């Protein structure tokens, strides 16, 4: 055990002290910050509102110019309601467009015109058309004797609030937030297994090509050497994850103070998962998560609504369970696959030869992440989700997709964890058998039959 600890220590320190580790650790949050900053900057650049002059000869607005709900257009009164005079004034002005409302018949509104120097964008045109339609509809209703206020009362706007019914009672939840957390957790595990599994493989190959391996295994058992490496690299991964969380929190906070918290959060959540940000939420919540209060009786909109949903969403989730199981599947999945990557490294002389053995390892991983995104996310408690969250090859990712949605029965969770533990004990044992023969084998092209023979070699 001492020796495993010594080996893990060396693996950890040499990797953490590498320049590439430092660069990766610093750059990843910056790249993430870049993903946030660039869209923000772009949105600020295009944010200058288009000024549209309105020559309201038909008196559709009755002197009260409309506000654009999308905040893209600012309406101003034209110099005159007379078209020719207004046009002349428009030519001299810097306004983007001139909207001309003729005297019109409510039942047959024709003759509305827009004058612009360049072609207007389609959204802007649609925007103005919709605004005019509403005005005319309102006028027609008045004509038909309907009161606008009555109509507004009739209009319905339903938001479904998700409530999970389980043995522990009712918990309000938010599908958006849950989905986001499921995605983030599953993808982190996926990347971690890949990035650090390959690092184990490279480390083993490096020891082989450096020819240090024979010196090493005259002091330690091959199994100790492999386990030390697997554990040391796991610690590197956890360190990097932790630093990323700390750094990106710092960067986001820094950005928030520059650009304003609401936009940063909006941009961030928008990236993490578009599903969480529906069109109403384009101006989303502030960073601070307010304690959840009782569901507001009145309809909320925009930022407040998102904020409430976010806090309510978090409130409805079993955060300790999610964190604990994330850590478990994060490490379990890594150990399961990491040992196999180590075995591959021992069987080949250089990285190019490793391709043929990588295939069977990477396939289940890629398959899981694909199926997780399409099938499991839609039906987290279906039979595909169930089986995939049991099989150790797929369970680390599949189970993390399910857990945030709750309602994973305890027996399933325990069975899945038990199987994963049994799984990585088995892969580590298997890898150890291959490893101890492989690391002393040079210049031999190995195939699967050869590998299977190694497993039954006597010590």
């Amino acid at each position: 055990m001492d020796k495993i600890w010594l080996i893990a220590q060396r693996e950890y320190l040499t990797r953490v002290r590498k320049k590439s580790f430092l660069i990766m650790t610093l750059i990843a949050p910056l790249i993430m910050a870049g993903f946030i900053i660039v869209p923000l900057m772009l949105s600020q650049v295009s944010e200058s509102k288009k000024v549209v002059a309105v020559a309201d000869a038909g008196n559709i607005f009755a002197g009260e110019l409309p506000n654009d709900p999308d905040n893209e257009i600012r309406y101003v009164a034209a110099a005159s309601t007379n078209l020719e005079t207004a046009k002349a004034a428009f030519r001299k002005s810097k306004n983007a467009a001139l909207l001309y409302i003729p005297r019109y018949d409510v039942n047959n509104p024709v003759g509305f015109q827009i004058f612009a120097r360049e072609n207007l964008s389609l959204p802007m045109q649609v925007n103005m058309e919709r605004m005019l339609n509403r005005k005319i509809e309102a006028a027609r209703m008045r004509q038909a004797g309907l009161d606008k206020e009555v109509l507004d009362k009739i209009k319905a706007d339903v938001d479904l609030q998700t409530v999970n019914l389980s043995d522990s009672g009712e918990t309000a939840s938010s599908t958006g937030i849950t989905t986001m957390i499921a995605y983030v957790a599953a993808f982190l595990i996926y990347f971690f297994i890949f990035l650090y599994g390959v690092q184990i493989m490279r480390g083993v190959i490096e020891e082989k090509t450096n020819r240090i391996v024979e010196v090493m295994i005259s002091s330690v058992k091959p199994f100790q050497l492999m386990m030390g490496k697997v554990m040391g690299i796991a610690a590197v991964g956890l360190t990097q994850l932790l630093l990323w969380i700390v750094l990106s929190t710092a960067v986001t906070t820094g950005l928030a103070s520059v650009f304003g918290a609401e936009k940063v959060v909006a941009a961030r959540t928008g990236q993490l998962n578009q599903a969480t940000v529906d069109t109403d939420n384009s101006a989303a919540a502030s960073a601070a998560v307010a304690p959840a209060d009782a569901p507001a009786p009145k309809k909320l909109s925009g930022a407040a609504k998102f904020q409430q949903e976010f806090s309510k969403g978090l409130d409805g989730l079993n955060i300790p369970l999610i964190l604990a199981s994330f850590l478990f599947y994060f490490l379990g999945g890594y150990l399961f696959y990491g040992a196999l990557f180590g075995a591959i490294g021992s069987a080949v002389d250089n990285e190019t030869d490793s391709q043929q053995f990588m295939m069977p390892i990477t396939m289940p991983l890629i398959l899981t992440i694909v199926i997780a995104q399409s099938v499991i996310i839609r039906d987290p408690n279906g039979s595909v989700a169930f089986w995939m969250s049991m099989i150790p090859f797929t369970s680390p990712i599949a189970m993390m997709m399910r857990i945030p949605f709750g309602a994973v029965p305890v027996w399933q969770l325990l069975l899945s964890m038990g199987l994963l533990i049994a799984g990585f004990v088995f892969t580590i044992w298997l890898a150890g058998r291959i490893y101890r023969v492989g690391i002393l084998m040079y210049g031999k092209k190995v195939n699967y039959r050869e590998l299977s023979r190694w497993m039954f070699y006597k010590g």
Partner: protein
Amino acid sequence: MNHILQAIDVHKAYAAHVALNGVSLDIPERSIFGLLGPNGAGKTSLIRIITQITGADSGEIRFRGERLNPSHIAQIGYLPEERGLYKKMRVGEQLLYLARLKGLSKADATQRIKQWIDRLGLRDWVEKNVEDLSKGMQQKVQFIATVLHEPSLIILDEPFSGFDPINANLIKDEILALRDQGATIIFSTHRMESVEELCDNIALINRSRKVLDGPVSQIKDTFKTNTYEVEGKGRLMVIHPDFEVLEHKERENGHFYDRIKLHHNTTPNDLLRYLIGNVEVHAFREQIPSINEIFIRRVQETMPETLETANALL
């Protein structure tokens, strides 16, 4: 005589071939032991069993009378044929790491590293990465790593093949010093002449079997052929039933070179007396077979069918 290591009827087979076929060895304490034989004879397999990298299929290894077990690892130092170090690690850290894996405490290891570093002139390189060192210096580092934990049994596989002549001599002296301090050294090599004068005992291995072992002096005695080389001046005409001329060369100015074999319990003095009566003797010496020659003769006697391959490999 105490034995530090005994191998008793060791067998080891791999999928395709037999590496060791009933090999038994006795290696005395405080000696230099040569494990000799052509490439592929089974030397490295035997060493890997002694260093517990692999296990024997059958047979037993005893270390100071005990059955070999993991507690002996700390008492064995091994320099493999394939040399290697972590290239991106500093010299000092690397030595510390390897020493601690052998069970040394950090304080002990640090102190011994300092001594060895000074002794082999590596002081200025301790903080450098191994890859920045010349090959000769890397070899010194590797040697230090082998002996740092003061093992009582040091196994050197092809010890001089990687070293340049200056380093080889340096290492030779260090090895002799270690032997004098009480360590036992095993040399394993296919270049028999390179260790001949260093070894006290040898074992010859060919085709997974031991063909010969024992103290070098005794082996040489056994394989002596009672043949003497004579150089001198005059006309040498040997007509004597006890002396057989194997080779006769005439040289300029009446000089000659002869190889003469003695028969019927005659002594070299008898030959000398006979020669002095006939010619002027300039040189007279016994022809002693080299280990190489002994090996070939032994293989010829015991396994004539493998001679060709053995010769080709030597």
